[in-house]
């Protein structure tokens, strides 16, 4: 036992990873137990991705991993090695204008405290990529992995509908 304790515990081992985040390539050495959410927030300082429960229920930490919405609190940074991550900071790209989804959230008052908002926007992004014309029921179903404690979801649903409509009009793929 004594010998084992003196060894470096496996979870504190370090590992080199290469990740592309919002179009920028990063090569970094990380502890294997570092969560992807903590890596994005505290190593790369992309603090727009929030952490609301750290057990994969609230959806605040949702990011796109190779285009798919995932919970960054349920993944280790090392698992994202070689992958492409998009966070809320990457939504508008280098444009000064907000992304149409972001614009719709402002126009429809789809956010209040704003804490869950980045995760919801990433979820909506993935949703509209899969289904550019979702029904109310589909929207509510797709949003049910993200908890918002402020809005009662009313205006979030409205914002998603508006964003979907605009994106269809502009033939803009998300």
């Amino acid at each position, binding site marked *: 036992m004594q010998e084992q304790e003196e060894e470096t515990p496996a979870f504190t081992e370090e590992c080199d990873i290469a990740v592309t985040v919002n179009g920028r390539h990063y090569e970094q050495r990380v502890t294997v137990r570092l969560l992807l959410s903590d890596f994005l927030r505290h190593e790369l300082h992309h603090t727009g991705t929030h952490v609301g429960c750290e*057990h994969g229920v609230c959806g605040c930490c949702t990011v796109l991993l190779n285009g798919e919405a995932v919970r960054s609190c349920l993944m280790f940074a090392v698992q994202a090695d070689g992958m492409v991550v998009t966070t809320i900071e990457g939504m508008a790209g280098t444009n000064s204008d907000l992304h149409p989804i972001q614009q719709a959230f402002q126009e429809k008052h789809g956010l209040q405290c704003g804490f869950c908002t980045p995760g919801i926007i990433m979820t909506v992004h993935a949703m509209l990529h899969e289904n550019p014309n979702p029904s109310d029921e589909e929207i509510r179903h797709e949003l049910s992995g993200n908890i918002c404690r402020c809005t*009662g979801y009313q205006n979030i649903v409205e914002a998603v509908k508006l964003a979907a409509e605009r994106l269809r009009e502009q033939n803009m793929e998300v």
Partner: protein
Amino acid sequence: MATRWFGAPIPRNEDPRLLRGKGNYVDDIDLPEQLHAAVLRSTHARARILNIDVSAARVLPGVHLVLAASDLGEVLEPSPLLVPHHALTQPRTQLPLARDEVHYVGEAVAFVVADNRYIAEDALDLIDVEYEPLPVIHSLEVAAAEDAPLVHADVPGNVAAHLAQTVGDPDTVFSSAPHIERETLLMDRGAAMPMECRGVLARWDAHEDMLTCWISTQGPIPIRNGLAAIFHLPEHKVRVIAPDVGGGFGTKIMMFYPEEVLTPFAAIHLGKPVKWIEDRREHFISANQERSQLHEVEYAFDDQGILLAVRDKFLHDAGAYTPYGIIVPIITACTLPGPYRLKNYSSEFTVLYTNKVPVSPYRGAGRPHAVFVMERIMDRIAGELNLDRAEVRSRNFIAPDEFPWDVGLVYQDGGPTKYDSGNYQAGLDKLKVLLDYDNFPAMQAEARKQGRYLGLGIACYVEGTGIGPYEGAQVRVESDGRVFASTGVTTQGQAHYTTFAQIVADQLGVDPKDVQVTTGDTQAFYWGVGTYASRAATVAGSAMYLAAVKVREKAKLVAADLFEAAPEDVELAGGKVFVKDAPHRSLTLGQVAISANPLRYAYGENARKLMSMKLAGPRPGPALPPERGAPGLEASEFYSPPHGSFASGVHGAIIEVDPKTGMVSFVKYAAVHDCGRVINPMVVEGQVHGGVAQGIGGAFFERLVYNEEGQLTNASFMDYLIPTAAEIPPIAVDHVETPSPLNPLGVKGAGEAGVIPVPALFASAIDDALSPFGIRVREMPLHPLRLYELLEELKG
């Protein structure tokens, strides 16, 4: 007052930043050399601490500091009792770290600071605490039992407080009333659960002898004052900032949570910034909760359905400590009469300690319980007399010409429970339209033929809002023309950067986009209390208005001198200041601000232009004429309401219940709300929506389940179910507007309203849907399994 922006549903100033992920929540701030803290929490609901061994934790590489109670010196003081009351005879507040005994699972026992959070949590595992478990009080029933074990050994009977108030003469009324009913009504524990947990970042600046703390709180100014006292610092050497706050709902209007003292203590001790961020499990077992009350109510009414008298006795669960005094049960007692002409009422409550997380206000703060009781009464009267439920309410409403209406009780702020204005029948009429009330019986009958159980519920409430003591605001135009407004209240989603900007914009003739509002930073404004009790728009909004008026009047004085005109002929519009009928010759607000500061050293573009305009030179006499007061285009004002203003509303819903499973779904939900004049209807509707969703959670899914050992058995989002978009129905909202005569804006609070009537209307709708089974709902929340059990009991 010009009202171009007041009342307009404009988009929010705060949104672009938050939507880009550029919010600034406490955990988004990382300072150089910052360390991270973690808290060791009690695993027992009640136990004696025999020994704490931190030696192994202290030597773990990466650990900088381990604190137990004995390491805190004079900082080991119980937290302040925030709202003392003569009836609270046995107040108890918490130590930053437990010393001799722990009183709830989750109570802070030790505090570790390390290089990062991961190592800090590793160190927690190395701390060895020896506990001697003691008998646990896990419920109100157990706390109230004769010979019950004691939560605090020196508090007999577990009784923290006892308060009785009487209006009129209920006993005489009961002795001759035609109808009398008695019943027991229960509300169980729930929690606010903001999406951002609590958090503290503290920095000690040795060069300036200054402590700066970023705290996810609703009350940074009282915390600053408290920290200054604890650490013997001048108040101006402590800066507390509530940056972006990811929801509060009451649970963050506390001081002190232990970490708010421990984190700055560690930062001062180590000379390095220290951050503590609560995780969700910690939030479940250490952030204050609410709701649990047990009411024994009796009520008397006549053949016409007029409520004659109410006698309500209730037990209120305080949890392990009473940091917030007995505010919650006082609000319950004062809210119970609601919109009804109740002239004979006695209320008696006993506040009991339990070995659970302490209780302080959570959105609604004692009101949902009271409304549940009163609206159960209204439904029962209708049922007993076979009258329409809305009609019974109408017969009992206070009429619009009866205001101000004095309920006769002392409110939470020590002032009268005196309704300033209202029109309850107008609200109910609108609700009936939204719900298609008159056609519901046919719809219900049709559904029953198909074996479906539809039910309609309604619930009315009156909500005390906008209490004092006061708030203040400062409005300032800088020489480049930018308008800054600051106030001591915080913002955790209520759109203050927009609504306060709307108030200021109207007075200064600018666009709200051009008014930069700062809230919750003691460096920007250091007088005031915080955002709670649905009071920010009313109290701080009124102060903002008064300060903006003062700035406008000052701008007129300054411009009048420059233009050699009368001040009353000067106008402010479109960001310009000019003499009425001569808008071609105008100054910018920035130029007026420069002129308002009689310096020889003005510089910049605005100053140069001003020079070239060859306006009138200064008058002889003092450079700052007495009527202008201070230099600059700046003013501070304060507003202190005479007493609270009373908002009101009525909600209704149509639900469908599946009696085979106890599952309930919403067919329709409608809310009619009266918060006086509305600053931004989009924002107010958003507040109502969010409140309703929280209310549905609290009526249906959200119950904190403690076992007999006082362990919270559902301390995660997997088990404590917060409603999602799939559970919350579309909500129709309409407004009634009865302005408050108490404040210059005519506004009342709106923040808590949505949540208040939901448990009551949910019970009402379930009773209606399942009337063939003869059900009477007497408890909240009511999750599907419990509803199923109730139905089985009725069948058996």
